[in-house]
């Protein structure tokens, strides 16, 4: 996945779309204020430069599906594992809630169900039947909308054709009005996401840690506070 930060205006449509697609329950304002919110996709604000020459950059943050994930190795029961195709998957029924993965994740993108997820009426009618509702005491995180990947694969198999670039769109990419988020197969050198990841503007988050994230951020250099040409 590539996310073009120069296009992102922080509208958080991706956050809402993700919530609806993946049955992420709202925590409520009080719990959210003390850090109990579950948001597979969240938008962080980065303020750059010094007053008066400042600008804010919005960074959508989600699980980066590391190549060599710190969360995978610390789990005592293999509730999180690396799928051969590159996804980092979470097996909800197996999780016992040690929260070791969340503590080990340098991106802080793993979420714990502190209480039982609740949808106040009539929101419970919006629950997506394709995605399991999680329960209290377990971890959850972004799956790159694995249910959509599955569906696209099934459709491709029915039509007896290989899966094409752009067949799969996670909810966040679909909802983004600025088309900042592009999803695809990084192993396919022709795919849009592969092309974009080779752009000189591309940068992988915390790459120096050696985790090998599969999310690329595209951006021009940092804001140095100069205005004009």
């Amino acid at each position: 996945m590539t996310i073009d930060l120069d296009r992102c205006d922080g509208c958080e449509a991706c956050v809402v779309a993700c919530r609806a697609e993946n049955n992420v329950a709202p925590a409520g304002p009080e719990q959210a204020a003390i850090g109990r919110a579950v948001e597979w996709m969240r938008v962080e604000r980065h303020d750059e430069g010094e007053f008066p020459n400042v600008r804010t950059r919005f960074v959508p943050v989600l699980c980066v599906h590391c190549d060599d994930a710190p969360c995978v190795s610390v789990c005592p029961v293999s509730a999180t594992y690396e799928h051969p195709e590159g996804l980092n998957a979470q097996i909800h029924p197996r999780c016992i809630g040690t929260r070791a993965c969340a503590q080990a994740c340098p991106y802080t993108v793993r979420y714990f169900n502190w209480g039982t997820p609740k949808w106040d009426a009539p929101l419970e009618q919006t629950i997506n039947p394709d995605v399991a509702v999680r329960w209290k005491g377990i971890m959850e995180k972004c799956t790159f909308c694995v249910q959509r990947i599955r569906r696209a694969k099934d459709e491709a198999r029915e039509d007896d054709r290989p899966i094409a670039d752009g067949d799969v769109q996670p909810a966040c990419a679909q909802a983004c009005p600025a088309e900042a988020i592009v999803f695809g197969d990084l192993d396919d050198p022709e795919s849009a996401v592969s092309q974009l990841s080779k752009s000189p503007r591309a940068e992988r988050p915390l790459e120096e840690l050696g985790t090998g994230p599969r999310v690329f951020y595209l951006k021009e250099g940092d804001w140095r506070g100069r205005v004009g040409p």
Partner: protein
Amino acid sequence: MLLAVIAFGGFQWAHQLKEGLIVAGMNQPVYWGLYLTNYVFFIGISHAGTLISAILRLTDAEWRRPITRAAEAITVIALLMGTSNVLWHLGRPELIYIPMLHPQPLSPLIWDVACISVYLMGSITYLYLPLIPDLALLRDRSPRLRWLYRWLSLGWKGTPKQHKLLERAIGFMAVAIIPIAVSVHTVVSWVFAMTLVPMWHSAIFGPYFVVGAIFSGIAALLIAMAILRKAFHLEPFFRPIHFNNLGLLMLTMACLWLYFTFAEHMTVWYGNEPDEVAVLTSRLSGAFSTPFWTMITCCFVIPLCILSFKRTRTIIGTVIASCTVLIGMWLERFIIVISSASYPRSEFMHDGGLYSPALVEIALTAAQFACFALLYIVFAKLFPLVSIWEIKEGDQTELEAELTGTAEARL
């Protein structure tokens, strides 16, 4: 009163089981809180016994004889208290058996499970073996519970052959338990150090934790000894020399502890890596500065002042120093767990909530300390806290030495 505290803790735990960890104070990014602090703290205390008594036994320190049992009992009970924290720490405690059935061997938590089970078994054996001759004594002399002592004493008759076997078994356990004890606290530290989290990812965490564990273990032992001395009138056995010697040992550990703490923080400060420095600043002058400087005072300044001088290294002096050391070491565990967790890599987490423990966590902490005291009292009521046969044996060797001494003098 202890039972009331434990009952309140149990009641709060039931509430947490029903509602989930939402009633505790943890949040994102502080996923680990007071439960894990207590876990590390109690496992540290557990090093009191086994390690101290095993080292003293191996080095044949004569003065150890009256204190080994009291120390070993601390080990077993503290270990039980420490591991019980896993029950309330887990999101789904009903699945606590899963790591045994389906372990993922790369996880430091699995290493922890393995090490601590071995250590628990080992320390129970190590407590039990030297208890056998005393159990036989109780079987013959005790007015009550004879069936229990008969069952536990395994037909001990005190023949020379039995004695020889027992001595060999104890000798073997004393050697075996030392690497096990060291490995346990090293692995506990690796639960933190194996992650990439700022100020957890440190190579000296293993020895740092082991030193801290022995340090707090001695403190716990000194306090227990002082209380037992008064409560059971054991003044002839727990003599000022024991407090003096253990006080000196604790002073050594205090210096070692300060050295490790200094090395740990110095490298971070000099390296000046922004994410690491954020944690360091929070300790030195930020949100965690009060606990941090209290810790330095409690773990080093006060013990140094009291234990350096023979005049203040009395029973009361060592007990005061022990109390501050226990407070300081608990704070150390708290700071290590919470401050690093509170400041994850800044690029991705801006507004993490700061952690403050909730009622359920405080109640369970209090319940654990109460339960520890209660179990220790029960143990002291049921079994002799001073190893009777070892003291007799000590008296005998002393007598023999005296006799040979006088014989040599005559010659």
